[in-house]
């Protein structure tokens, strides 16, 4: 067996139930009741139910779900802003429920930081002071933290705005500050709770590109919450689809689009421009003895790029990964994959 690298964040059967006597519900049949019935019967809301996943270092893990599906609650259990009702949250293999207050604060100060949906900037502080907030809490001297904050502002493209106040900035710029604040403590893990939902589409796209660029440059582990499938597909190495507190599917963007786990996911992915997501690898099949190939295509080529090729030539193409042939695709396979919903 090959060595499995240790997950940097993992959840093991995590539950979060709000309401009276919430801890008595997990493990009883009530836990599986639909939302309304559970509320009627116990006046509890099960926000997160039995969620398990592992995130590898450097991975961007996206959790996608509609409003109220429990995403914010889930992400807040990763830094223990909320305590899980049941289950375990492990950071580098350590159970965070075992941390005392002091050690938990250390984790929050150094290891894990967060970007908030409505930015969460403190209106009474200048931009630099907002960015330096985490360092200030950690006890870093004023000069040092302001220098660091100024650097980070540069990174997110806000150089020179340090003396402004949050309400003088546009929404997109405010969220850049939020991003800078989360980067300034140089954490290993960054949590994003729907950071771009409140922004206009164009600005949102800029910000997504910014995150992709950052991820390339600084290689953080990111756990990213969104209700926007396009955003999930664009950013995520892997995506978890959440519904009513449960993960209904975890997989790469392609897997989710190509093989939705159920109707719910299929419904979501129906309108996805499949040509931009699916790759040759997903739709290829193994050879049944053909020898006449039109050419080679890389395994991670998206359908969009295959289209012109298969239109011109009816013969199959070899799908090649690292120089070896892993399968074949042809016109029928490409077209079928694009129309299939």
């Amino acid at each position: 067996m090959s060595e499995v690298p240790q997950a940097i964040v993992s959840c093991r059967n995590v539950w979060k139930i709000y309401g009276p006597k919430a801890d008595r519900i997990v493990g009883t049949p009530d836990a599986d009741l639909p939302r309304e019935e559970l509320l009627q019967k116990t006046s509890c809301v099960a926000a997160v139910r039995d969620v398990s996943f592992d995130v590898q270092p450097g991975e961007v893990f996206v959790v996608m779900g509609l409003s109220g599906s429990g995403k914010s609650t889930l992400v807040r259990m990763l830094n223990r802003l909320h305590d899980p009702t049941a289950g375990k949250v492990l950071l580098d293999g350590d159970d965070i429920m075992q941390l005392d207050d002091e050690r938990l604060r250390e984790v929050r100060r150094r290891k894990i930081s967060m970007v908030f949906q409505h930015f969460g900037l403190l209106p009474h502080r200048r931009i630099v002071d907002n960015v330096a907030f985490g360092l200030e809490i950690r006890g870093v001297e004023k000069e040092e933290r302001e220098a660091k904050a100024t650097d980070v502002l540069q990174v997110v493209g806000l150089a020179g705005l340090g003396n402004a106040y949050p309400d003088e900035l546009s929404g997109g710029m405010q969220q850049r500050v939020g991003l800078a604040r989360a980067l300034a403590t140089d954490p290993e893990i960054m949590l994003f709770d729907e950071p771009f939902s409140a922004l206009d589409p164009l600005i949102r796209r800029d910000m997504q590109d910014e995150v992709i660029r950052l991820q390339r440059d600084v290689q953080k582990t990111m756990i990213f919450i969104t209700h926007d499938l396009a955003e999930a597909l664009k950013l995520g190495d892997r995506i978890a689809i959440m519904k009513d507190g449960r993960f209904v599917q975890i997989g790469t963007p392609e897997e989710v689009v190509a093989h939705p786990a159920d109707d719910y996911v299929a419904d979501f992915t129906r309108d996805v421009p499949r040509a931009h997501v699916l790759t040759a690898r997903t739709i290829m099949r193994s050879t049944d003895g053909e020898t006449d190939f039109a050419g080679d295509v890389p395994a991670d080529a998206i359908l969009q790029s295959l289209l012109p090729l298969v239109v011109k030539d009816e013969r199959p193409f070899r799908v090649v990964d690292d120089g070896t042939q892993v399968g074949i695709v042809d016109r029928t396979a490409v077209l079928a994959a694009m129309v299939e919903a």
Partner: protein
Amino acid sequence: MAVPLREIQQVADLTLVPHVPVSPWRRRAVWAVATVVVLALGMILFSGGFPDSLTVDAARPFNAFSDWVITHQRTTPLFVDFLVPLKDGINAAVDHLVLQLERFTWLGVLVLAAAIAGVLAGWRMAVLTAAGFLAIGLLGLWEDSLHTLALVLLSVGVALAIGLPVGVLSARHPRLESVLRPVLDAMQTVPAFAYLVPLVLLFSIGTTAAMIATVIFALPPAIRLTSLGIRTVPETSIEVGEAFGSTSWQVLRKVQLPLAKPSIMLGVNQTIMMALGIIVIAATVGYPGLGLSVYQALQDLNVGAALAAGLGIVILAIVLDRVTHAWSERGRVRRGSTAIRVFGWSVSRRVGLIVAVLAVVAAIVIGRQVLRQQIFPTGWTVSIAGPVNTAVDWITRPDEAIGRITKHITDLGVNYALDPLRSLLLGLPWWMVCGGAAVAAWAASRRVGLAIASFLLIAAIGVFGVWDIAMDTLSQVIVAVILSVAIAIPLGIWSSQSDRVQRVLRPVLDVMQTMPQFVYLVPVIALFAVGRVPGVIAALVYALPPCIRLTDLGIRQVPAERVEAAVAFGATKRQVLRKVQLPLARPSILLGVNQTIMMVLSVVIIAALIGGGGLGLAVIQGLNHDPGRGMVAGICILLLAIVIDRITQAVGQPTARKAVGTEHRIGWLFGPSRMRGSAVQVGVQEIAMDPREEEA
């Protein structure tokens, strides 16, 4: 899908029961006739008033206690070790402060006040403060003002020293908050008069009783607005603090307190204004100063002197209010920048501070060494009392126009409103009056508990033997409330429909709300002499601003889409008002009415100072020579206030208990105090607060 049972039932009702349209007016008419019949029967069949056989001598134990205090205060440890040293300490502190201010000389005090105002709130406020103090000096009120200022400053200091930490604690510990809430409720509902008597019982007449009363009166806004400010810090901001690893102390210092600052500053402002507002009441227990001058002048019917001292209080109030207000505004705008602007120059704060300190030192040195005047020189003062009295005498001569008009109004008020109503209340058997309270409580809240409590508490007033004077007070309250609301709501509606009207009204209301309640007593005795009518008029005028403001605000806060929706369906302005704005503004307007009632009650009580009689008079007599009766009257004021307040609070939201809870809190937040525009905003913000918070 299953159809809910209730809807099936409704459909069944619709089909089975023939629909008989009942016009609301007809229904109201039926109710009115029924009420009149019941009242008439009650008056005819039963004897009115409260039977002596049911009363107890409630005054006796208090008098006994008073005697006990007098005989034991030199021996009992509670007094020897605690109350007496406390009293001596407070006396010494106040005396010392007055002495110190005198030593600074008038010039020193004037410059010191201006310098503080300047450093805190900018040079304009320094000029305003200097002008205010100069005016006080010129009016010959310097010495009185020093006493008043000393009491206000010390009381506010104590109130803030207690109120801010308690407010922070109560925001962070919901359990403490739920314990404190009823205590603060009581402190704010009860007119200050009611708790003077017990203080006098313990400390006798003098500075200590005055100062403790002032602290009690001024404390609630400090606690409440601090707590409110901290509780309304957005959840996300706190999460931000926690997510970056803050300790709870760091969250408090770096997130909650800075974000709560506007609310806390408003609390400071309110605390100061409350303290200033009570000083005439402090005068009734013998504390010298502007309050005592007003009090004595009112007793002597010396309108001129009362007006002069009243003017001094108004000047102090305006200065303190504007300065603290500008201070909090600046805190919001300035944010960390360290420059002060003077006549367009930008001066660094440190330089400003140094200049201020130098100016103060120079002024004190000049005052002591050159002018050698501790008190504002009498040669420079102008007395306005004489001319004012002459003018008032002339105006109110019964054969002149104004005198005739005011005489006429007085007669109308007494003959057609106050007397008939009092006769009605006294003519009805007591249980019908109590029953009326119970019915009102039930109609307002649908809670049997409140109805029973209302019945019993009102009956207790009778049992304590002050039924007649309580009904006298009640009749004045009812008349003043009806008139006040009848003026305020239309004005509020008008102001909501026209920005111009609002612009004109706003500064007027601001000034009205800055003036302490008893100041309203002065002009009314000038016009209406003494009696119940001037008290009622003072009360109704004093109570106008919050109701006008809340009506206006409630209507203006109706979301624009709702109004647009109505307009889109072709509604006229009138229809929009009647069918959309007024119904949606109802909670706000009812809150205004509640405020009106509580404010009217507090003024009607102190109107005893100008011949209003009733429970207030019993308190004043109690303070002077009959503590037992004063105490009983105080308790009955409290009972009346609680019943009236609970009932009117409940009217807002009859069924949804959660909503009652919230609104309730806002009502209490400002209690019978004055309410500023921004305070209203804070309150209404709380109406809109997340219901989740309410459950916690």
